[in-house]
């Protein structure tokens, strides 16, 4: 009964929307991108340019920058089949979670340009053969280091985790007298999605896989993964402060940017802030790919992040909405965003653009990092990704805080995920 009523109201409102839009010239497409600041400004100008070109209108809906708040808002809207937002800006791990609510955007990307996007990003956004979102800008974990301090102690940029720990220790010992509370390495150890990103980098760099492999089989309970976590455990209280277990991105940046840490793991956003006019470490910072572990499969790893654009299945104007997505993810628009806002393009070709390179010198190394970035297993686990991630980061947090040992914790994760996935079938 109530459902029928709801459906009736939805219909009425739907037809009203159609009527009113038919009277205006073109149609109005609502897009949720960012909330405020430069990100909003760039989205606004980009969307306006499209509107002008096509004779349609755009309406920007600002949503909170906090990923949890945004996801929860999206879910409420989409579960109610709301027509209020046509184009959604979504996080790298949401395509699997929200796939059922989005249309296939394969046609929004011109066939000859599909190869321009980083393959990892396209793979990440393809759920059951359907391109549910188009990559807009990319993110990946980076190692920030203090150039001045490494030079002072004649240390190279570390390429393995063991080397990083040694270097950090040496610099800390040397700097103790000048900066009593200096730390070696800060990262994101709070019990949240960011810890999954960090821990995935450790595990993957030791050749320990990606928690769940791309066939869907749970793979986390392996010796290399356990070794990686045991290694990270040794950092707490030695090169990393005990407080790191409640750090998210901003806390790590706060410590690093006030000159109290030698190394930091963070996303690219910290670069411009660390080099801002009032920063005590301005021009003393370098970035590099994160170190690798040991073992035969050791490699440098960076967890893939970033934002994509998707179109709601409940949109009244899916065609126009998809066209807006095509425009915003176009090479010209991504170039503009890279130059004006340092957003890392999701297209390879933009990185070789001279203007882009001139505006963002640090982009050159970033392209390679992106090529080798590792995606969280969000596509293969689909709807259950958050459950996978949360099981994983809570277990890792337990290991890091010394409440459980790596071996039993990972076998626990393995068991839980095996059950959650119905033995790898998801």
């Amino acid at each position, binding site marked *: 009964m109530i459902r029928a009523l709801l459906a009736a109201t939805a219909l009425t409102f739907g037809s009203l929307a159609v009527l009113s839009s038919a009277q205006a010239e073109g149609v109005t497409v609502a897009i949720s991108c960012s909330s405020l600041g430069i990100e909003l400004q760039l989205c606004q100008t980009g969307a306006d340019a499209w509107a002008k070109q096509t004779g349609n209108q755009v309406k920007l809906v600002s949503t909170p920058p906090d990923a949890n708040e945004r996801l929860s808002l999206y879910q409420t809207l989409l579960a109610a089949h709301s027509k209020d937002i046509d184009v959604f800006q979504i996080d790298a791990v949401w395509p699997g979670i929200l796939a059922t609510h989005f249309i296939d955007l394969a046609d929004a990307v011109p066939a000859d340009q599909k190869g321009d996007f980083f393959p990892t990003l396209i793979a990440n956004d393809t759920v059951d053969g359907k391109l549910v979102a188009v990559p807009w800008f990319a993110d990946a974990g980076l190692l920030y280091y203090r150039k001045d301090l490494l030079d002072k102690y004649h240390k190279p940029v570390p390429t393995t985790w063991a080397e990083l720990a040694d270097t950090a220790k040496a610099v800390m010992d040397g700097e103790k007298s000048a900066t009593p509370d200096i730390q070696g390495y800060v990262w994101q150890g709070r019990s949240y999605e960011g810890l999954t990103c960090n821990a995935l980098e450790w595990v993957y760099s030791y050749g320990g896989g990606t928690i769940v492999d791309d066939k869907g089989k749970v793979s986390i309970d392996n010796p290399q993964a356990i070794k990686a976590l045991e290694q990270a455990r040794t950092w707490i209280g030695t090169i990393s402060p005990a407080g790191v277990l409640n750090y998210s991105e901003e806390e790590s940046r706060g410590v690093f940017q006030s000159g109290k840490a030698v190394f930091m793991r963070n996303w690219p956003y910290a670069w411009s802030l660390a080099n801002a006019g009032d920063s005590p470490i301005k021009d003393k910072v370098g970035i590099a790919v994160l170190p690798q572990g040991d073992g035969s499969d050791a490699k440098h790893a960076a967890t893939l992040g970033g934002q994509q654009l998707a179109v709601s299945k409940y949109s009244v104007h899916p065609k126009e909405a998809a066209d807006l997505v095509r425009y915003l993810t176009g090479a010209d628009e991504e170039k503009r965003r890279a130059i004006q806002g340092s957003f890392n393009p999701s297209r390879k070709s933009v990185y070789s653009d001279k203007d882009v390179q001139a505006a963002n010198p640090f982009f050159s190394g970033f392209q390679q990092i992106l090529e080798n970035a590792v995606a969280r297993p969000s596509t293969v686990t689909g*709807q259950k990704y958050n459950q996978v991630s949360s099981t994983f980061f809570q277990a890792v947090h337990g290991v890091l805080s010394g409440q459980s040992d790596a071996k039993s914790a990972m076998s626990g994760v393995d068991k839980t995920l095996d059950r959650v996935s119905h033995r790898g079938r998801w």
Partner: protein
Amino acid sequence: MPREPATVPAVRPAAGLVGAQPGGGDAAPRRTGLPPTPGPTAASAPRRSSLTLAQQRIRSAWLFLAPMLIVLLLVAAWPLLRTVFFSFTDANLSDMSGWQFVGLDNYISLVEDPVWWRSVVNTLIFAVISVAIETALGLIIALTLDAHIPGRGLVRAAVLIPWAIPTVVSARMWAWMLNDLYGVINAALLSLGLISKPYAWLADPFLSMVSVIAVDVWKATPFMSLLLLAALQVLPREIYEAARVDGVSPVKVFFRVTLPLIRPALLVAVIFRILDALRVFDVIYVLTGNNQNTASMSIYARQQLVDFQDVGYGSAAATFLFLIVALVTIVVITFGRVNVAAAGDGR
């Protein structure tokens, strides 16, 4: 300005001042500002037409209740019943129309989940300790504010500030202040010599619970103080005067007179604080995230409902939470002897 209608008769004077019995309509006189003369014995006068009058009053009771009940039913019935309903299904956010009844399956899984019980224990510890401290502090503050001190108005406003800042913001502010390396709390305590090395307030399993409770106490004590202050204001001044003349010590006056008289208000305040504390979400979520050492029942329910999209199971957790809260409330009401049914009339 309150004005007493001329028809109000005098109230009875309090019997023995210090031994005044609280509760019900027989309590000590309130400031009606009228001289104490013996009033009519209860209900003797109205009884003349008692049947019709009682009926009339019951009819008007429903009339008076109707607007509130209608509004409350309108806004609360659907959201609450829907949650209970979905707790018996396997509904999922990705497709809300494709649910099936699963009976008690969700509840069985819930009861078997150690993580759930961990969050129950966390929540109970949190609620008991924080509400106890808030009550004690709230009482002290209310009594202090009730006394005549210079600049009372400003102090009153100042004490209310924590309640006035949105929790999402104030919890983040505390997270900032409690940071181990650039937080002001460690800096202040270090410079005062109260601690010898910076503490990781929010990372250590034990300290994080302490911090969460401290922030909640900071945040919610004003709620207590304000309600208790209001309750103190309604107390008859005469009692204090008499007690002062008799030379009874202030502590004795508090325990023998004040506390019994404000007990009903105190219990209502405590009940609402317990309800809030048992459903705590923001403070813990912002300060320590999904950390299992501090995660509350609401955080668990939210994770299932939103993060895991499992509407069925999440609704079961929410309904279970509701049952626990109801149980605790019943216990408090029973042991606190809150006079739910008491009334000034017809007793």
